[in-house]
């Protein structure tokens, strides 16, 4: 079945396959001198089982979008307009007390610096079990069992030993897998990956991307992949949105973007990369 490539699909909310539907999102950073418009009237759709790449240079606002979707944007960032439909509900209109639970049940995120995303004074096991216990009221031992299995699911060996270790004892790649394990433990429909491989070695990059890809295939997770690296996009993405200065300048399938780029900026990006 052919999926529509047009990101501005008005019937998208109703479509079962749409996990994330951002409409007209605008976000500003309140600064002492003047406000910075980080995101302007942004539209983006992420579908089940598809990897949507959000591509742009640093400062384009792409990470800000990710944080806004997860509800963890900076204190001085204010959303000045738009809706974010996560699994059918607009989280921007949701009462605060339900927000965090809803988001963490329906979306997970992994960040650029995997070691910095883990608390250095807690063991890996403690942090994974914590994520599990937030979502299910079970005993610690039951959570431990789930944790062990989850670590295996992200291709980490000797999970029992691993759980007792502290983050500084692990390599970047291992930490990123742990982050993936934490973010996806109850198979959220959406997984956001904010520059997941930028801080890793090239060989490890491929492994992590492969991990994300297999999650998409196995669980039907919608993945929003945020990156500036077109090579990564070419590897695993299905759809691409090009972002510049807070706007989406072009969007389409990977083939569309790579073989028939419309916007000048897109062409510039491609030229620089290839």
């Amino acid at each position, binding site marked *: 079945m052919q999926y529509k490539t047009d990101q501005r699909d008005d019937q998208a909310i109703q479509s079962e396959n749409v996990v994330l539907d951002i409409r007209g999102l605008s976000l500003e950073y309140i600064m002492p001198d003047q406000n910075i418009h980080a995101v302007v009237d942004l539209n983006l759709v992420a579908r089940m089982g598809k990897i949507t790449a959000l591509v742009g240079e640093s400062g384009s606002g792409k990470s800000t979008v990710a944080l806004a979707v997860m509800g963890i944007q900076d*204190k*001085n960032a204010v959303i000045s*307009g738009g809706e974010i439909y996560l699994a059918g509900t607009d989280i921007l209109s949701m009462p605060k007390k339900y927000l965090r639970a809803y988001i963490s049940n329906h979306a997970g995120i992994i960040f650029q610096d995997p070691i910095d995303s883990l608390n250095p004074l807690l063991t890996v096991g403690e942090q994974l079990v914590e994520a599990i216990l937030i979502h299910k009221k079970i005993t610690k031992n039951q959570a431990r069992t789930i944790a062990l299995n989850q670590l295996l699911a992200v291709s980490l060996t000797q999970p029992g030993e691993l759980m007792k270790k502290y983050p500084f004892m692990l390599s970047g790649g291992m930490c990123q897998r742990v982050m993936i394990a934490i973010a996806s433990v109850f198979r959220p429909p959406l997984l956001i990956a904010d520059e997941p491989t930028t801080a890793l070695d090239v060989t490890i990059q491929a492994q992590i991307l492969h991990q994300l890809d297999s999650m998409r295939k196995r669980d039907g997770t919608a993945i929003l992949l945020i990156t500036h690296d077109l090579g990564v996009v070419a590897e695993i993405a299905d759809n691409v949105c090009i972002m510049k200065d807070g706007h989406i300048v072009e969007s389409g399938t990977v083939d569309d973007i790579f073989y028939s780029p419309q916007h000048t900026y897109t062409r510039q990006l491609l030229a620089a990369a290839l």
Partner: protein
Amino acid sequence: MMQVKTQAIKRSNAWFHSSDGIINRILTQKAAVFGFVIVALIIIIAITASVIAPNDPLKVNMSMRLKGPSSLYWLGTDNLGRCIASRLIWGARMSLIYSMCVLGLMMAISIPIGLLSGYAGGRIDTFIMRTIDIFLSLPTFLMALAIAGMLEPSVKNMIIAMASVWWAPYARIIRGMAMQIKQQDFMLAAKAAACTHSQIIFRHILRNIAPSIIVMATLEIGSIILAIASFSFIGLGAQPPTPEWGVMLSDSKEFMQTQPQLMIYPGVAIMITVMAFNLLGEGLKNAIQN
């Protein structure tokens, strides 16, 4: 869609949270200026003490003991009939003189040692640093107490005691700065031009670190004044009948229940002076960092 009202509230909250806000910046500047004004005022009072003090701070007049404020005695008299206002004014002079002495002595010790250690490097540096480390781990108050206590209690000994313990942290900082400057490019140029060692040290290094030293000194004066007052209070520094604020507080302790105001004036004087110097020091520090 967002309600306009919640939007506005969110905006003001967000702005509040940015700690580098406009309000903060003006405040810090204002505070430093305020500090400067007070410090200048205190210095002027100290210098012109003999002129502006209404009475002789040492003149005892038992018939006028513990009187309230009047046109002759601006703040009243203490338990020996001396004019409180005059003693406070002269106290400013004492505090400044003593603290400058301590500061001067401290710097006289720490600057040469720090410069030498930082510039020379190698074994001299290691030896000096070891010594400094030993001094740093000495409990300062304890040592100053010991020194002042063992010798005859007097202002001179107090100054020596303080300086001989407090020079260490500064020597270390100065050494660090000297080492940093040593690495910089223009130093190589100076060496190439075959400047003598002392030329290098004085002309180049010292000139570069002088502003930082001044800032450190200003920030330190407050603590020194506090320490001087503390030592004088317990009898290890300035001795009665010297009109020093700590001595005045010590005198007032007996009369706490009946004449509490004797306790208030010198304490307020100390607090204002220290606060002013601290504000000034902070302002200077911020100015230099930007």
